[in-house]
């Protein structure tokens, strides 16, 4: 990395706020300055810190995934009816005129000129998506250091779904993060894995709701069959990691084991519509061999046992340790750090709070230069925390920024999520967009005080003389703030 070499380790307060957290709000530096490590650890001890609680006034009105999906199903049904009605009326003009009897024509009023149609209400899925986005952005602004939020984003990207898949995922992607990720970020990996893989959003995103055991009752009746998408991505991305030794036969076998994990449909034959259910009729009967072990026939429990085994597999520990170290320390993480995290993962049975605490205790986390780039979401969150909130109750601008920066919210290009390499976010196009965004944020910031004071509050005494001087000599407060938001100390973490 081309950060000028510096003999001394980075400022620990900056490490805590930028490498581990979401950047400083005014006052944050002072609050943690006496012991940044303890400040981060205190976050890990706060009960329910990761949750977006619906009891909280700020988040009231967000539905769970089941009612969200039900709303989407109802809207889908209505849209279908509307389409059919429209086709029916346009397809049968002759019939319509034949029905126009003389009496009806006689009573007909002159047709009023068509009113300008009111702007149609946005689809329910878009409304839900925006409310969830607003909650996520609020939570980012309200977090203390934001380490736990960063962990949420890490796991949400590890177990990503994409709203581009369909309306069901668009309606439930935010609820998925609240229900399957947040409750477990300081809990057990195996519990998160289970919650993720049985969540309707994931079952839809990776097609398992349609996968049917070829020899199951449904498979024989309907001539439908396996879809191996979820099975493959669980092994390759969620647990063991690619190249860890599983074969195509393992993938197919696991796909059979996972058949029946689905979501109850609109008619509610299998359970409450939109909820996660096990459909025994679609489950492939019989024992199955996976990774050399036989899993006896056992309905839903067959996949639960297999998932539990994968969660404890040494390859999974290695895979998760590498990703965590890459995310929080460096693109090419120090091998000692990876080994240490893998050991803690294995010893603690995937205790994610212990893993997070280990990261804080790692000397490498405090000595490695701040050379990674903030991801687009972290960048936008850091802008809001330092320069003030965006338009009230409207996530539109932040969402547009994320789209432009190439990290649209809950819409990764594939099931492997967004890149976690600095190069991906330091692209020419990406940097130009960051410049435009920094300018827009600076222009709309209310009461910019003295940009030099903001530099002290957000970056602190380790800011380079060049950054300090550039801000001091800015031609306006707005330009000074934009320079702060573009400074290497603000971009890198």
């Amino acid at each position, binding site marked *: 990395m*081309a950060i*000028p070499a510096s003999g001394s380790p980075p400022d620990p307060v900056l490490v805590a706020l930028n490498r581990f957290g979401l950047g400083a709000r005014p006052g944050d530096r002072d609050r943690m300055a006496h012991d940044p490590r303890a400040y981060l650890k205190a976050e890990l001890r706060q009960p329910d810190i990761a949750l977006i609680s619906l009891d909280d006034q700020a988040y009231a009105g967000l539905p769970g995934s089941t009612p969200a999906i039900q709303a989407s199903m109802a809207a889908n049904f209505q849209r279908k009816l509307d389409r059919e009605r429209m086709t029916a009326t346009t397809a049968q003009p002759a019939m319509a005129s034949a029905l126009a009897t003389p009496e009806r024509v006689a009573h007909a009023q002159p047709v009023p000129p068509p009113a300008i149609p009111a702007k149609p209400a946005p689809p329910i899925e878009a409304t839900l998506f925006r409310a969830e986005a607003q909650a996520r952005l609020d939570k980012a602004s309200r977090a203390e250091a934001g380490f736990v939020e960063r962990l949420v984003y890490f796991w949400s990207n590890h177990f990503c779904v994409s709203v*581009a898949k369909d309306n069901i995922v668009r309606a439930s992607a935010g609820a998925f993060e609240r229900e399957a990720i947040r409750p477990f970020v300081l809990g057990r990996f195996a519990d998160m894995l289970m919650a993720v893989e049985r969540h309707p959003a994931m079952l839809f995103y990776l*097609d398992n709701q*349609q996968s*049917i055991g*070829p020899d199951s009752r449904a*498979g024989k009746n309907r001539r*439908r*069959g*396996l*879809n*191996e*998408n979820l099975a*493959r991505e669980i092994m*390759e991305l969620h647990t063991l990691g*690619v*190249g860890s030794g599983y074969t*195509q036969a393992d*993938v197919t076998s696991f796909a059979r084991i996972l058949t029946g994990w689905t979501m109850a449909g609109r008619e509610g034959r299998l359970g409450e519509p939109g909820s996660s259910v096990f459909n025994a009729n679609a489950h492939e009967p019989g024992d199955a061999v996976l990774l050399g072990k036989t899993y006896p026939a056992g309905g839903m429990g067959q996949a639960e046992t297999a998932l539990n085994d994968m969660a404890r597999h040494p390859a999974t520990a290695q895979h998760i340790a590498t990703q965590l170290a890459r995310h929080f320390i460096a693109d090419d993480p120090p091998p000692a750090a990876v080994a240490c995290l893998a050991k803690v993962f294995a010893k603690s049975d995937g205790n994610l709070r212990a893993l997070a605490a280990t990261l804080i205790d790692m000397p490498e986390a405090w000595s490695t230069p701040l050379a990674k780039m903030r991801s687009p979401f972290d960048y936008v969150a850091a802008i809001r925390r330092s320069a003030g909130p965006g338009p009230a109750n409207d996530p539109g601008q932040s969402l*547009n920024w994320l*789209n*432009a920066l*190439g990290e649209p919210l809950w819409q990764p*290009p*594939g099931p*492997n999520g967004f*890149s976690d390499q600095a*190069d*991906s*976010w*330091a*692209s*020419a*196009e*990406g*940097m*130009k*967009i960051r*410049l*435009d965004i920094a*300018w827009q944020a600076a222009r709309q910031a209310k009461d910019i005080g003295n940009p030099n004071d903001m530099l002290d509050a957000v970056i602190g005494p380790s800011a*380079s*003389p*060049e*950054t300090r*001087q*550039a801000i001091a*000599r*800015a*031609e*306006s407060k707005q*330009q000074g703030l*934009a*320079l702060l938001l*573009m*400074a*290497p100390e603000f*971009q*890198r973490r």
Partner: protein
Amino acid sequence: MSLLCETPHPSRRAVLMTGGALFAWAYLPRFARAADNRDPRLIVIVLRGALDGLSAVGPIGDPDYAGLHGDIALSLAGPHAALPLDGFFAINPSMPVFARLFKANQAAVVHAAATGYRERSHFDGQDVLESGFAGPGHVATGWLNRALESLPAGDRVATLGGLAVGPSTPLVIRGAAPILGWAPQSLPAPAGDLAARVLDLYQHRDPVLAVALQKGIDADRMALDGQIGGNAIKPKDRAMKAKGGLDSAAGMRQAAQGAAKLIAADDGPRVAALAFDGWDTHVNEGGATGRLATLLGGLDGAFEEFEKGLGERWKDTAIVAITEFGRTARINGTVGTDHGTGTVVLLAGGAIKGGRVIADWPGLKPAQLYEQRDLAPTSDVRGVLKGLLAGQFGLSAAVLADKVFPESAAVKPMRDLIA
């Protein structure tokens, strides 16, 4: 401390010093044409997610095709009849532009093709496809960038560098050779000299970001002001990002439209890479209509925009669309297809010796399928790419086998791809 701090308005020279030495094409005098008046260009479109080659270009003459591909098989009958290319293959009806170019001998298909990768992970498959290495695990540089790097010093194509379209740089064109990044966007431009001040700060504190930002600013200016081909991109076209993004059908077309303007310029890059996501059709893939057909229609639109936008440069241009692997020959239990092996490479452009489907057809009987499930690969994608690089830029087989596609001496450049 810097010049800038003393004078609030940077001189043009200061800006030049910032980015010029590393990436100067925006300011260079226009290049004279080569002696033979040929001015070759190569555009690489990466289709991420694994394109079902059997639904893009259907082997309708193969007696086993319709049975395997079931309801989504292409056919010459019905309201959405596929467009025949020759007596055996027909292309998806969502690609009329490609079919027209094929008839005009400006498009070709290589069928039953695959890279050397034989597993079925998208991400490893994409890394192999884009890095050009024999196996996964190489993610620093791509074959297209190394091809630029391998050209003789001072070569015009090498000097002009490459173009990466989209908010992040596709692996295929990452590397040491200079790359310009560009994507359509719609944020208000910063006022005053903010850009110059940030660049100056980066020059002193973070040279990597300095280079990236300078390139981004150059590209934006080149693409948006009137100097490229005389036509500025209209503001409404710039607003695409908020909508479907690069991967919607409209997005593919608009990305090609903008890229064509940059590439067509006399002093613009001669190679370009675009990546379109979303080809992973596990469920309800559709055949002649539906999800895949919509995507193919977008790709077809991209070909059309390149043809239009490149103008007289089209005759020297080769476009190649590649994907990490194919999909299962037999449709799965959800009227889609799972990860497979052999697929198609699509070639278009005035430089292509077209009108041909190039295939050593392996057949679709169970014993002929790869692992009894996928179209067996009989052509190596690297051979096609080598043939294009050799034909367009004169790279030797030795350089191609060593530097551009390491450890690939056994894969010979496919001959006669370029007219």
